[in-house]
């Protein structure tokens, strides 16, 4: 294994995991400086009673719930972010607590950013684009205290420095990447995923698997990323099917929360790949849920990327072995076996196997390929794809 010219590793989020943590939410969030909390969620989660439990937990720690914003839709956008920030200002909040999946957490990150720095959401689009000391060269200015309780086990947004937000006017999803978007606190309690529908548990779990596999096989792999991603794969292998088959299996759900949290760490620092490059435009243009798109695209990308050279073939072999796949043989054999395993897993989880099943038309492929070329995940892919390669990959996945 080579020693890299450069890598960095940081997980700024304090993560606490375990049972019965929701009732201690206020006790924990107080340590991050929160006093008046804006709780952000969606109507579905609020309807489950989870928000009431978290509210009680916040108040039990001596904090106040300044307000509850439950207007986050499944596919949140810049207008919702601004509405949430305004609601927090109106309520006199000084901190944000997200209780939800990726859309809720990313909306909360964006709202905290606007609440703290002002401006329009799109003003901050980019990489390291938030205000910094020393004329942009120093430490980033902090956001208001931010905590997240994920109610899905997949996106890992509760511990990533990234927010992905839809801009309906431009018809795109854009991202903002900067350290302050890493929540100060993430609470992983399986009680928060108790009412998660099995099909969403399946799709988000495949999102976590994609983060982990791409984290190990990206050009931006690192020893630290390997440690997180490979153990995430172990946990996913042991727990994903259990969590989907039996929503009452609290151990499996808890372990999936940990797996998703581990798997996002490499991704948040750039160790990703073209499964994401393909899946983001599928979501932006055709509304394909991110986890479903990843589940469909991942095996085709594995077969493409496994040809990136011996070092990467060995990395795919390591991932395959942890998933219980016979990983003997040459790169083509490893890639084929791993891809078939992922397809089988998706099938057993009840997920679709084709993009066409999700409404992606064949005539949409050229635009999807062009979009994929510009995705930030394309540069750290172990094989440099051409636009024609993307066209072929989308054709296979269709």
């Amino acid at each position, binding site marked *: 294994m080579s020693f890299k*010219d*450069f890598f*960095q590793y940081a997980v700024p989020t304090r993560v606490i995991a375990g049972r019965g943590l929701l009732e201690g939410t206020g006790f924990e969030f107080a340590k991050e400086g929160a006093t008046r909390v804006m709780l952000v969620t969606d109507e579905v989660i609020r309807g489950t009673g989870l928000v009431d439990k978290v509210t009680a937990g916040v108040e039990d720690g001596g904090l106040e719930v300044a307000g509850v914003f439950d207007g986050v839709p499944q596919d949140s956008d810049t207008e919702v972010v601004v509405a949430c920030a305004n609601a927090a200002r109106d309520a006199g909040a000084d901190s944000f607590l997200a209780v939800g999946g990726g859309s809720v957490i990313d909306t909360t990150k964006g709202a905290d950013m606007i609440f703290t720095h002002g401006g329009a959401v799109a003003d*901050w*689009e*980019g*990489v*390291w*684009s938030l205000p910094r000391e020393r004329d*942009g060269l120093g430490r980033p200015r902090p956001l208001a205290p931010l905590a997240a309780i994920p109610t899905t086990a997949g996106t890992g947004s509760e511990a990533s420095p990234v927010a992905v937000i839809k801009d309906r006017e431009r018809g*795109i999803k*854009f991202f903002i990447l900067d350290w302050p978007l890493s929540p100060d606190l993430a609470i992983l309690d399986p009680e928060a995923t108790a009412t998660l529908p099995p099909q969403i548990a399946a799709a988000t779990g495949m999102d976590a698997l994609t983060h982990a596999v791409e984290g190990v096989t990206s*050009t*931006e792999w690192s020893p630290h990323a390997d440690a997180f991603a490979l153990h995430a794969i172990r946990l996913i292998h042991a727990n994903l099917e259990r969590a989907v088959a039996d929503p009452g299996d609290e151990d499996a759900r808890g372990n999936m929360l940990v797996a998703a949290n581990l798997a996002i760490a490499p991704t948040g*620092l*750039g160790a990703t790949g073209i499964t994401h490059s393909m899946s983001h435009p599928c979501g932006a243009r055709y509304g394909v849920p991110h986890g479903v798109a990843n589940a469909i695209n991942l095996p085709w990308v594995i077969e493409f990327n496994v040809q990136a050279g011996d070092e990467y073939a060995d990395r795919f072999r390591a991932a395959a072995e942890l998933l219980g796949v016979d990983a003997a043989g040459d790169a083509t054999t490893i890639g084929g076996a791993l891809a078939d395993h992922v397809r089988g897993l998706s099938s057993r989880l009840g997920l679709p196997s084709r993009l066409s099943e999700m409404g992606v038309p064949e005539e949409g492929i050229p635009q999807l390929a*062009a*979009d994929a*070329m*510009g*995705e*930030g995940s*394309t*540069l*750290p892919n172990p094989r*440099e794809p*051409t636009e024609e390669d993307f066209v072929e990959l989308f054709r296979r996945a269709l």
Partner: protein
Amino acid sequence: MAYFKDAQEVYDTIGKLMQDAATDDELAPKFRKANTIVRYEYRDPESAITVRLQEGQPGDVDFGASDMEPEVTMTMEADTAHRFWLGGVNVTVALARGQIKASGPVSKILKLVPLAKPLFPRYKAQLEAQGRTDLAGV
């Protein structure tokens, strides 16, 4: 010590490369598919190059102040830009380290990175032709 002593040197070298690329029959049409206006803001020395990459539009390149409103802004040291055009910068790493910062729809520019590779040997040859062998070999 920085490679360039003043903004004019940046414009004479990196700027010239961008001007030539903007009128290149083979490369310019590919770059214009980005359909954006990008402004490169350099430090040490302070300088700026604004480039129009829009289909059906001329490939304008402005040095310093510009009337073109950028959609994407890439900020870096001029040295980083110089080493990029010599093929010596891993963009993913430079972004990760914050050596390059980007504001706006970054994807429009990232998709150009692979397309820029044919310009690396051209930049080196241009520097040598300009008598800037001190820069061509760094």
